[in-house]
């Protein structure tokens, strides 16, 4: 279905030279430097699969998506989607894909949603009956009815995202690219969107590539993930593989009532943890403890904390992708050494 082989993307960046003279110089004889946004990335996706494509900020996720959707041309390497090369015949290729960029809308700001869809129907030459059927389905899973008459500029972020997803699906694409579809949304809306994506994937066996920051998106939607960092592949496998390999890190935050009690909290010897599995930071009264829940169960850590010191306002969080990657690197460095 989708084959990505050793793709690489370099950008030329002009170096600003200081001073008035410098800017004149760079106007006529610009000095450029090469920036490698994507170094060497390969992966495959099967038909009907939902692939989680993750990595920290600046890892090159968006650049890869832009190459797969035909917006950018790779410097080297190849990608083949549905047997087509995205750059070769762009107009033909984009008929078979749908794209949603969470950070910006592709809808027309001033058009009411219905008119927007009418224009897209013309653009993609969707037949009347197919269009009606599709709209009915999208209406059901994305609940567009409440705002379908409103201009896009008046929609809330969650509504806009649903509208954008519907817009990308009108022409029944074989592949759907979702770039950060839940960014900035609250939990309830996130959940609705995840359900809708799952329904869409089930309905027509649409292949989905999902880039995200949010492990929750991945956990509910995709069996397999590809993780990249600094433009290279760093992990490929299932979500549980990832968690097993790189530890189930949790983060405990709490406020002490008296700062002296910090000394009494000795997680390391209490749970017999290695330096990798525990980190304690404090700033006055507020403390942050990161620990591996595989070796120190969450409930025991919490009850130990509450029993040892007088504490107000306690909370436990899942480690985010940044944290997993940080640990991934620590392991990598140790393995090298």
């Amino acid at each position, binding site marked *: 279905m989708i084959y990505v082989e050793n793709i690489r993307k370099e950008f030329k960046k002009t170096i600003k030279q200081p001073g008035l003279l410098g800017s004149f110089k760079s106007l006529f004889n610009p000095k450029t430097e090469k920036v490698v946004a994507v170094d060497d990335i390969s992966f495959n996706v099967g038909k009907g699969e939902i692939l989680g494509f993750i990595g920290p*900020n600046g890892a090159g996720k968006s650049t890869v998506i832009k190459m797969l*959707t035909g917006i950018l041309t790779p410097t080297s390497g190849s990608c083949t989607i549905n047997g087509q090369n995205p750059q070769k015949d762009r*107009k033909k290729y*984009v*008929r078979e894909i749908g794209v949603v960029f969470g950070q910006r809308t592709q809808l027309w700001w001033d058009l009411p949603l219905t008119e927007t869809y009418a*224009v897209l129907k013309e653009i993609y030459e969707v037949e009347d009956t197919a269009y009606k059927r599709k709209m009915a389905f999208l209406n059901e899973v994305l609940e567009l009815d409440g705002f379908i008459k409103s201009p896009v500029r008046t929609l809330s972020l969650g509504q806009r995202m649903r509208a954008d997803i519907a817009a990308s699906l009108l022409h029944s694409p074989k592949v759907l690219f979702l770039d950060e579809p839940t960014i900035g949304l609250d939990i309830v809306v996130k959940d609705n969107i995840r359900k809708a994506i799952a329904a869409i994937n089930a309905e027509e066996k649409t292949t989905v590539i999902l880039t995200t920051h949010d492990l929750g998106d991945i956990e509910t939607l995709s069996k397999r993930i590809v993780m990249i960092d600094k433009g290279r592949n760093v992990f490929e496998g299932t979500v549980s593989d990832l968690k097993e390999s790189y530890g189930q890190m949790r983060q405990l935050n709490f406020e002490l009532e008296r700062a002296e009690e910090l000394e009494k909290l000795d997680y390391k010897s209490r749970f017999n943890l290695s330096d990798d599995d525990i980190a304690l930071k404090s700033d006055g009264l507020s403390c942050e403890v990161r620990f591996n829940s595989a070796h120190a169960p969450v409930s025991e850590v919490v009850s130990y904390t509450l029993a040892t010191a007088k504490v107000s306002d306690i909370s436990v969080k899942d480690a985010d992708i940044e944290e997993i990657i940080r640990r991934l690197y620590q392991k990598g460095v140790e393995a090298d050494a």
Partner: protein
Amino acid sequence: MLKKLRRALKMHRIFIAQDLKKLMEYKLDFLTGALGFIVYQTVNLLFLWIIFSSIPQLEGFSYDEILFIYGFSLIPKAIDHMFFDHLWNIGYWYIAKGEFDKYLTRPLNTYFTVVVEKFQVDAIGELVVGIALMASTVGKVNIHWSGLNVLLFIVAVIAATLIYTGIKTITAAIAFWTKRSGQVIQVFYMMNEFAKYPATIYNNAVKFLITYIIPFAFTAFYPASYFLRGDNPLFNIGGPVLAAAVLMTAGLLLWNKGVKAYESAGS
């Protein structure tokens, strides 16, 4: 082909209808916009009127002939403004902010998709003044309106419009390499100021510039002088057609080359 065209027209109609609906919603805004252009042009006309109250003719052109040329210059400018306004946004910020991405994910020609997106209703102000000026002077200047001349007039207006559009297309496409080119569009576009008056009032360097380099003289003075004086149709009408063809071809080639060189913004 015909089906493609019909599809394109249908899309265009949706955008135009929408911009017209918005006009109804913001009547006061539309009126200020259109009125702004009308007042701006009226001020220029007052200037001409004050000048001509003490001289009988300007470099061999009567007051009415000058008004005819002036009116002629406004019509292609207004039509370009009405249908190709979105090119400014491409130069000013669409490319710099990565907003251009969306045009590349659609199965249509990018230039077409950009252009149909905006129908600039404000341009009606210029169009009305231009037509009014031509209508009020056409009886006072010496023009023979044969069928052929009417046809040539239409050809000249279309060619003149495409001269504007071509210059905007070329300068907007520069942004594919430099990220922003709004100021460049602005400088070249401002040269249309030269088009409002007979090219004979300028010195040779300026005349050469506005005839052969940035050919705004072909958007009004040369075609208008064919209708007024009847001389040299090959240069006066053929010139705008050739200039329009060259500029549009260059513009579209540069645009397509630019789309290939396009590097989406950041992240």
